[in-house]
Each structure stands twice: as C-alpha cells, then as structure tokens.
C-alpha cells in the first residue's frame, strides 16, 4: 500500500471510530439525563408525562407513614410554598432520611398523582444541603410564601442551614 493510501485508511478508520463513539454518546445522553424538579414545577405540569425525573424537596413533618405488613413507605415532599407531592417507595430509606430535611428521589409519577420512587437519596452530611436542590427550591415562582397552616415561613436563602 502506498503511504498516502495508508494515511487515508488511518484517517477513515479514526473518523469511523470517533463517529461511532459520538453516536453512542449522544444516544446515551438523550435517554439518561434525569432533571431535578421541585414540587411546584411538577404540579405546574412542567414535567413531560411518563419521564423518569428527580424530585427534590423537604420531607413534610409527620408525613412519613409505613405499611404494617410490607416494606412500603409514603411521605410528602414539599417546598417552602405549600406545594406537596406524595412519594411512595418500596425501598429502604437512607440513614440520613428525616422529616423536615431535604431529600432527592428518582422515579416517575403514576396516574393518581403520586411519585413512585425507585431510589430515595438523602445527602451524606447532616448539615449539608445539595447546592442544586437549594437553587431549585429558592426559585420563586409564586409570591406569598405562606405555609399550609397559614404561618409565614422564611424563604430559603443560600447558606441557610435547614
């Protein structure tokens, strides 16, 4: 083979490989990105139906209910503006899972408007709130941050520990 042909061969081979790899990567990216939403965005219908996404928020006080017979737990995820979504999971809850603390769960909505979680995460430092969750919750869509029971609650600002 002439040197020039050989070089062309190598270039073609390299292009084919890089092309195949980019095709793989872009396909994989399309299917496997999980967006993080706050309850408010979910209730506003911002999440396309049937997609797997991550739901972030605080676990509402006294909302954790366990089944008497099987490993099923239900709890309510809320933001600081009274938007609530019930989460159902059949998995063990993580060590750091606590009411009134932040959590992020991955799964999708069912017909009844409940979030079926495949995985529930609570972050590893008891005082640390994931930055991404802080941002999502801090986004103010509606004014009047009033709690369900009518009491005013503080806006969550950056750096504030919850």
């Amino acid at each position, binding site marked *: 083979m002439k040197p020039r042909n*050989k070089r062309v061969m*190598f270039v073609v081979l390299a292009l084919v490989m890089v092309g195949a790899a980019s095709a793989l990567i872009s396909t994989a990216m399309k299917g496997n990105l*999980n967006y993080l939403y706050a309850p408010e965005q979910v209730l506003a219908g911002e999440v396309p139906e049937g997609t797997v996404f991550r739901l972030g928020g605080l676990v509402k006080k006294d909302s954790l209910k366990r089944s008497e017979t099987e490993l099923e737990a239900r709890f309510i995820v809320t933001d600081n503006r009274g938007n609530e979504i019930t989460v159902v999971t059949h998995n063990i809850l993580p060590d750091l899972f606590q009411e009134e603390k932040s959590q992020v769960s991955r799964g999708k909505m069912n017909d009844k408007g409940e979030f079926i979680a495949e995985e529930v995460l609570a972050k590893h430092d008891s005082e640390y709130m994931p930055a991404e969750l802080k941002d999502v919750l801090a986004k103010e869509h509606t004014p009047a941050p009033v709690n369900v029971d009518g009491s005013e609650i503080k806006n969550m600002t950056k750096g504030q520990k919850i």
Partner: protein
Amino acid sequence: MIPEIGHFALILALSVAIVQGIFPLWGSLTAKPQWIALAKPAAYGQLLFMVISFACLVYAFVVNDFSVKYTANNSNSQMPTMFRVSAVWGAHEGSLLLWAMILSGWGAAVAFFSKGIPPIMLSRVLSIMGLIGVGFMLFVIVTSNPFERLLQIPLEGRQLNPLLQDFGLIIHPPMLYMGYVGLSVAFSFAMAAMIGGKLDASWVRWARPWTNIAWVFLTLGIALGSWWAYYELGWGGWWFWDPVENASLMPWIVGTALIHSLAVTEKRASFKAWTILLCILGFSLSLLGTFLVRSGVLTSVHSFASDPGRGLFILIFLLVVIGSSLILFSFRAHKLRSVGSFSLISRESGLLVNNVILLVMTATVLLGTLYPLIIDALGAGKISVGPPYFNFVMVPLALVLFSVMGLGFFLRWKKDSIERVLKKVWIPLAASLVIAFVLPLVVAPEFNFKVVLGLFAGSWITLAALMWVVSLGRSPFKLPLASWGSVIAHIGMATTVIGITLVSLYDTEKDVRLEKGQSYEMAGYKFAFEGVEGHQGKNYTANRATMTITQDGKHITTVHPEKRDYGRDAMAMTEAGIDAGFTRDLFVALGEPLGKDAWSFRIYHKPFVRWIWLGAILMGFGGFIAALDKRYRRMRKIAVEPIADNAGKKNQPKPASGVTI
C-alpha cells in the same frame, strides 16, 4: 509548639521546593554544574521537611491537641488511635498535606533511583517536580492551613464522619494519591525532555517504570475505594459512576493508554508527540480530579462543602500547568515527527486502536461528569447523568477493546499479516467461544447473551495471554519480567471483566420487611431473622441484628448487620453483614425499625463480586513486576556520564542546537 514546628517545616519545605524548582533548571540551561548538583539534595531536603511537617500533624491528632482547628473539627478523644491517625487525611487540609508529602516522596525516589539518568536531565525532572510542589504547598499554606490554631480551645473535638472510621479509608486515600501524584513523574520526564529538546527513546525508558508504579497505585487505590463503598456505604454497590469516582477513573484510563504508548515510543520511535500529550493529559486529569473534589462544585458523597477560593486556586494552577506544558509542546512539536512507519496490520496499529478507544472512554467519562456542571452554568436546568449513560457507552467500547487486546499479544511490530495472526490465535479464539456459549448453558440459571459477551472477553484475553507465553517457546523462568507483568496484568483485567459481568447480570437484590422469626429466601439461601440486640462499641452504640443463613437446611453462616449511632451530631451508620466467598457474597444490610419486632433489610446475593477486586490485585501485581524488569536497570549502568562533559558541551556558542542533553 509542635503544630508551629509543623507549620514552620512546611514553610521550609516550600522554600526548598522553590530552590529546587528554579536553580537546577536554570543551571541546566546555563551550564552551571553547581546549580545542577543542587537538584538531588533539594529533593531529599524537601521530603525531610514535609515528613517533619506531616508527623507534627499526626502528633496533634494522636495526643488530641484540640487547639489545632483541623484536629478539633475532625477527631475526638473517643476514637481509637488508629482512626485518629487516619483522620489526618480524612478531610481537606490534611489530605492536601499528605498529597504534598507524597509528591516530595516521589521526587526523592526519582533522585535516589537515578543512577543512569544524566545529571542535566535529572535536574530538569526534579525542577519540574519542585515547581509542582511549590504550587501544592502554596495551596496548603495560603488556602487550607491544617496547623491553624483556635483561640478558644474546645474540650472535645468533633466526630470524624463515621463513614471514614474504617480500615478501607486508612489506606484508600494514600494509595490513590500515590497514583495521582505518581503521574506527575511521567509528566516531569516529558517536560524535561522537551526542555532539553532531545526527544529520543531514552526519556521514555526512564519514564516507563515510574509510570507503571504510579498506575499500580492508582489501580489499587480505585479498587480499594470500590471495595470500601461496597461494604461501608452499606448498600452493596461497587461502582456508582459518582463524579469523584470518575475523577480517579479518568487518570487511570489515560495512564493505561500512556503505558501502552510509551512502549511504542520506546521500541519503535512512533507515537512521540502522542505520548507527550498523554503525559500532559494524565497529570492534568489528576489535577482536574483534585479540583472537582475539592472545590465543592460537584454534588457527591465525597465532596465537602468547601470554599470557592480553594477551587479558584486549583483552577488557576491547572490552567498554568496545562498552558505552560502545551506552549512548550508547541515549540517542540516539529522535533516530534515519528520516525518509524508501520502498516495497517501491525502491533503499532493494535496499540493505536487501544489508545483511541481508551481516550474515547476518557472523553465519555469526562463529558458525563462535567455535563451537569455545564448545563447548570448555562442555566438550562439541574440534571444528573445516570449510570445507564456510562454503561451504554463504555460497554460496547470495552468489547471492541477486549477483542483487540487478545490479538495484540500476537501482532508483530511494523508489519504483520492477518493470516499469520489468525493461524496463531485460532485455538484461544475457538476455546473462548466454546467457553462463552457452553458455560452459561450448563451452570447459569438462565441464558443471557450479555453473559456470553462478558465470558468471551474474559476467557479470550486470558487464553490469548497464556497462549502467547507458550508460543514464545522459552522457559517460563527465562521470560523477562516485563512480559510476565504484561500477561498477569491482562489476566487481571480479564478477571475483573468476568466479575463485573457475572455480578451485574446475575445478582439478586431485595429490600424486605422481616419480623423476628420470619425468613426470606433468595437464590437458594434462606435468610432467617433472629432478632436485634443492643451492642456497645468503642465510640458508638449499635443495634445489631442476627441473621442465620441456611442452604437446604444446612447452616452456612450467621451474619450480624448493624445500625450504628456515633452520637452527638454524627449520623447513623449502616454496617453490613457480609459472608464473602470466591464464587458469591451474601450481603445483608439492616434498615430501620418498622415498629413491633419488624425491621427493614436489604439482602443481596452477589455472584463473583470478589473477582472484580481480585482482578485489580492481579493488575497491580503485573504492573509492579513489569516495572522491576532488568532492562530498566541495565540502561542505567550504560548511561552514566560524567557531569563535567555534559556541562562542557553546553558552553558551545550555538544555543539552539546546544540545548540538548
């Protein structure tokens, strides 16, 4: 007093590093033998002061000196001494000090084992390492001083994160750092060679054993991290594609590519520019990993909420390193024309495929790790890139890689023919196909094509490697260590591949609710929950469950998964009960109390999970003995030259051509 000595020693080490970074390099360019001769003693001196400094910090932890802020934040007197020592590198400041000490250790090691390296070259290598050290020590002193004192001395320190109070964590970070920092040696050799301008095979031969050793530490460090996550994080996963894991995986993949391209550059004078770029890339990714972990930009189990000033410092350091090395590269690029040519079917081509695939893998991991950051910076939402992305891309790439891997053993340098290679490989190829198809049919619970692929890859690599040893026709005792190392490391890779395949496709996992006396059956094993009792550890209290595991009525083992409470502000900890075995692990983790006598459990049956780490040990062993090969030592004896001669040559009027070694 002792912490001040530590602080002072650190500053002295920095001063020595500055001297080491400037004078030997300058001396090598202006032909001043005295300055060149500074390199070695400076490297030893830097190590000495770093060791003193580090020892002072360890002392503060051992004697519970809570007037030191870092000690008070990360250790308390209730912790066992062993964990008080490992707490030194359990958080940011101490781990960076360890990093800097390891760097000076590598520098001193290069200086010590440098018999055959010409002094001018050595002085440049050590200077580059000195400059890197200056960067890191400044980082420690300016942004994260571990010796800072508290004005109000607390009576008791805070708890070290209980996850980190564990044997795995005593050795995981030092191993990983040895690997990370070790890549700086290859980087320094590449830089030194480019400064000198003589880019032949000699610098590559000196750099090879060092790269091997660094890669060995990286391999073992990553495997230890995976093992630790498996038993200590409590949930039975061995790899999470967590950003911090990715940060250590990327330098490993590039390091693997580098080991192979170094071979080509040394033996065939090909891939010259490529090899240098890989050296730069490997070390840059080590720095990037540090930046990602330490700056707090990532949401990860490892990242501590840390301040952005540190991130900025590392980012600038990273830019300086990459920038200056690429500028140097651009000046030398014309000298890096490869001499050796090779045809399409040749060992060079095989290794080219290896390198291209490994780099595509690195790019894949890098993209998946940084993509959420980019999207967030663009304000386009908060996303996470899940494990399916990585698996989807990495698995097909790996399959191509493994297919070529077996062939690579038999390919000849420069030019080979397909017929000749096929004639050699058909036996292992056929045998591994038989194994891949028949074995799952006979033993496996169900037929799965992915298992066939995994088993094929594993047995093909193993058989090809063994067949290659046989085909060399030499007594196994006369085979060079480098060849043995290569064979063992590749078999290690095969072992890991088989482990990953089998555990990924055949493991069973179930979260269950069990009341005292109830049991659950999985994969032929019966897990009977006998109850939970209180248990008092050294610095924790625990709920300890007793789970009896039987198979067909025969008692296999009893495990005691625990839920530990380390008190104060620390969180609860899950300590899994594991029955480890060569062909399967049984894994029981205790969840929470569910009222009455019921608890939640996570139960796993994990076939062949140990093979993943066994393979890593084999890879490490292979890499290690390859570095011991006689060739590298023989080289040293030949190359000894008196220093005056070299310096004398430097004085010739034409600096452009004179700046060679």
